[in-house]
Every structure is written in C-alpha cells, then in structure tokens.
C-alpha cells in the first residue's frame, strides 16, 4: 500500500487529522518553542542590534535600526561608542557596582532571616507546618507594588516608625529612613525573603534528619553538627534561594525608585530612566546588554540547578 496515494485522496479534515495523529509530538514541542523563540530569544538580538547603533538625538528613536544595514562600515565605529560611553562615564560603573553590592548584602540578609525560618517550618508538626507555609506564601499572591508602598508609610519622616519613636521619647526629631539605602535593604529583604525560604524548605524537607541525631549521639556539639552536617546538606537549597534573590534584586526598579528615591543608584532604575526620560534607546540597550552579561553566569547556574531538579 502506498501511503502517499492514500493521502492524496482524502479530504482536508482527514489530512489535518493525519497530521495530528502522526506529528502531534512535534506540534507539542513546536508551539511553545516558537512562542519563546519569537517573544523571548529574538528580542535580545534586537536589543543587541540597537545597542550597536548610533544615537541620533533629533531623530525618532527607531531610526538607527533602518540605517544599520546600509552603513555597515560606519557601524563598527559606533559599536565601540555606546559601550565605551558606559565605561568612561563614572555614573554607570558606579551604578553597576552599587547594584551588585546592594543585591549581595540583601541576599545575605535574606539568608540569615530565611534559613532559621525554613528550618523551623521543617521541624514543626504537620498542622503548624501547613499554617506557616501558607503565611509565607500568602504575601506572594498580593501585589508586590503595594507591599513596597506599605513601607513608604512606615518609613516616612512622619511615618509610623518615626511617630512611634518620638512618642516613646527615643528621638526628638524624625530620623531619615525613607529615601535611603537602608530603606532599599528593608524593601528587598521584605519582598524577596519568601523566595529564599521556599527553596530552602523544599531542600530541607527531603533531608535525612537521622544524620543529625547520629552526630549528636556520637558526641558532636550542636554548633559542630550544624557546620559539618546541616550546612553542607542544605547547600543546594541555599544556592537556589540565593540566586532567586540575587538575580532579580540586581535589576530591581520599583524598590530603589519608591524607597531609595534619587539617593540610591541602581542599574534597573538607571536603565528605566535612560529609556523613558532621556529617550536614549541605544545607550539603554547597551546598559541592558551589560546587565545581562553581568547576570548570565548566575542565571546559567540557576538553570542548571532547575533542570537537575525537574529531571531528577
């Protein structure tokens, strides 16, 4: 029997059915693949292309893209220009370094707060465990923006904390809490600590806790047990949680904007302003590309852990 002969004689509906019957696996892969390719991967190449084109202040912002192909030779000169500008201007280098400093310290603070909480959740009884997990997850479902806004009310010069301290007689005049680096740390730890707790919890939940009892039985002090048994066993959870806090915190925009004001330099905010206020698309694209390069290693590490986790 000739397969091709058969197909030519059947209707379109049957043919569609045939495609579905024989190529459905390919279709299942193709649809999401195509979507991500067009709307996730391709856009990065466009950003790269624009970051390599010339900024013409007077022209519409998309003009450089059209000129790109025609002026290939000239392009090589301006390639260096946008990235060199970032390197030469003190502001950008300082802002990148400050973003990394803030996200590193915030990640450590999240770990210091999140680790004992995750540990306490794992060790608590069945009902308590579910209530605590629910309490940790619940804020995650509410608006991120409004949770940051809540801290504006607490930290303002006439805010709840200053009012409380003044009425208790601790201070006479309001201390500056809002629009400072301190406020940004509070905001990041507040919004990102669940991202630290949940991977840690997932990791600790699977651990063999009898090892801790064994260590204790063999005479190890609690501190020794912690550093030689618990900590090494929970390292995968620590890394996963740290990456989930560190990567997005580095590019954070809302928290430095609402809580840091103009005083705190962070790259996400600079990029947003460069794009929307200064309308310098090539420089904004170059800023985004450099940020991507800075974060590509931690992101690849995260992806590695993620795929190991799901494939078992």
């Amino acid at each position, binding site marked *: 029997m000739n397969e091709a002969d058969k197909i030519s004689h059947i209707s379109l509906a049957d043919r569609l059915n045939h495609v579905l019957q024989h190529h459905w*696996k390919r279709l299942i892969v193709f649809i999401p693949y195509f979507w991500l390719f067009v709307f996730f991967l391709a856009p990065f190449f466009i950003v790269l292309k624009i970051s390599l084109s010339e900024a013409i202040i007077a022209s519409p912002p998309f003009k450089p893209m059209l000129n790109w192909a025609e002026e290939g030779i000239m392009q090589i000169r301006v390639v260096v220009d946008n990235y060199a500008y970032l390197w030469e201007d003190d502001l950008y280098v300082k802002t990148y370094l400050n973003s990394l400093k803030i996200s590193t310290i915030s990640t450590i603070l999240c770990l210091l707060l999140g680790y004992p909480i995750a540990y306490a959740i794992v060790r608590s009884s069945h009902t308590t465990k579910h209530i605590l997990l629910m309490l940790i997850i619940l804020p995650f479902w509410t608006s991120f923006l409004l949770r940051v806004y809540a801290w504006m009310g607490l930290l303002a010069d006439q805010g709840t904390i200053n009012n409380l301290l003044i009425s208790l007689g601790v201070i006479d005049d309001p201390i500056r809490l809002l629009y400072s680096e301190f406020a940004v740390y509070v905001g990041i730890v507040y919004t990102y600590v669940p991202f630290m707790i949940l991977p840690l919890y997932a990791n600790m939940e699977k651990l063999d806790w009898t090892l801790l009892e064994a260590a204790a039985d063999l005479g190890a002090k609690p501190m020794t047990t912690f550093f030689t048994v618990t900590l090494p066993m929970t390292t995968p959870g620590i890394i996963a949680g740290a990456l989930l806090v560190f990567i997005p915190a580095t590019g954070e*925009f809302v928290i430095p904007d609402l809580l840091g004001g103009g005083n705190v330099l962070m790259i996400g905010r600079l990029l947003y302003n460069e794009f929307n206020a200064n309308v310098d698309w090539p420089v904004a694209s170059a800023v985004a590309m450099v940020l991507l390069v800075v974060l590509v290693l931690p992101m690849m590490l995260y992806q590695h852990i993620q795929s190991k986790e799901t494939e078992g």
Partner: protein
Amino acid sequence: MSNGRQSRFLFITTCFGIAFLYIPMIMLIIYSFNKSKIVPIWGGFSTKWYGVLFASEEVWESVTLSLKVAVVNACFATILGTLAGLALVRFGRFKGRTLFSGMISAPLVMPEVITGLSLLLMFITLKEFIGWPDKRGFTTITIAHITFSMAYVAVIIQSRLAGMAQDLEEAAQDLGAKPLRVLIDITLPLLAPGMVAGWLLSFTLSLDDLIIASFVSGPGAVTLPMLIYSRVRLGLRPDINALATIIILVVAIGVLLAAWIMFRQQKQRELELSMSEEN
C-alpha cells in the same frame, strides 16, 4: 539544654519573620480607614477613601484592563506552559532541547527591566516590518505576560510530571491505547490540579506586573499597577491604602478558598481510592 536554646531561637526568629511580613500590610489596612488626608497621622475612623476610590473612573478602567489581560494571559500561558512541560519531561532528547529548557527557565529570573525593554523593541521592529501590532496596549501587554507566565506554568507542570507515577499511563498503553489517547485521557486529567495552579499563578503574576506592562503599553492603556505606581511615586495616598485593603482581602479569601478546595479534593480522592481498593 542547648536544644531548648535552639528551639527558642527558631521560635523567636519565625515570629519575627512573620511579624515582619505582616505588620506592614496590617498598617496599610488600618490607615485605609483614616479620616485624615495625611496617611500616617490618625484623624479618626472613616470609610470615605473607599468612596473616593470607587468614584474614580480611572480606577475602574484600569481594573477592567488588568482583569482582561490577566484572564487571557492565564488561559494561553496554561496551554503553552503545559505543552512545554510535557515536551521537557516526557519526550526525552530532541533537537534543540537545551535551548528550549534554557528559554523556559530564564524568564523566571530575568530582571524585568531587560524583558520589558527587549519586548518593546521587538514589537516596534515587528511593526516596522509586518505592520503588526499597529498599536500597543491590550495585545502587547498580554503577549508579554504570556511569555513570562508560561515559564512558571512549565515549571509547575514539570515538577508534577516528575513526581507522578506512570503506572496508569503504562496500563492504558498495555491495553492498546495510542500514545495521543493516553495523553488526552490519562495524562492531562492527572495534570489538571497543576494546570489549575498554573492558571492561578499566571493570573496573579499578570495582575502584579508593573515594569513589563509599562514598557510594552501604549498611550491610553493603563493597567492597575501602572495607575497605582503613577499615584504613589508622588507620596502616600489614602485612596491607595483603601485599594490595597481590598486587594489583600480578595487575595486572602481566594488563597484560603483554594486551600480548602484542594484539601477537600484530596480527602475525596483518598476516600475513592480506599473504596476502590476494597472492591
């Protein structure tokens, strides 16, 4: 002795953590009932800011847009994410799998400013070459949201597939069902709870997004987070406290309801399972 000290330390840290998470939200709710226009100074009880909020046409328009985007996004993201999760867990090695799994997990950690900027530039380039999308708003925001939401759905589906026993699927196959039948009749129903969770997560992520929507939106299309942001960046506003209170209450009720339904379903399944074993 040291064990007691350890558990006391854990107890105190957990209480501190929970208080840290909840006190700001509680303060937000309390001050929404403040009569005074200056948010942190108490001027007596009042519900007038809820009236101010509901009277605003801007608020209603942005709520409508946000809900429309969130629903359409959640449906598409659930379909695409489920397909992606199936492809990654059940189809073994295929050409370009590494790139695929990279593209699936990258949106989870990609800083939003980068995603937003790159999608906007993509839409502008597309418009130049194929004339679509002719205006930015509902469509572009929804596409952008689907792109990152489907990654979250894929992760949920992947972990559910990985933890699912394959004996039902194998039994169907042994009885002569074709692989596509097995997928539709056995695998998808088993994945349903994961798909529901993915839908809800996508819905919430979409309602929550400010940065990506601000990049890819056009004139006239203002989502709820965009409206909130434009108001609070100038300072504290009592009507935003009222809005926050409503959102927090809706979410709390929703989460509790979802937990209760899941709990009941699980009980029922256990019951059915034990009954079928008896037969």
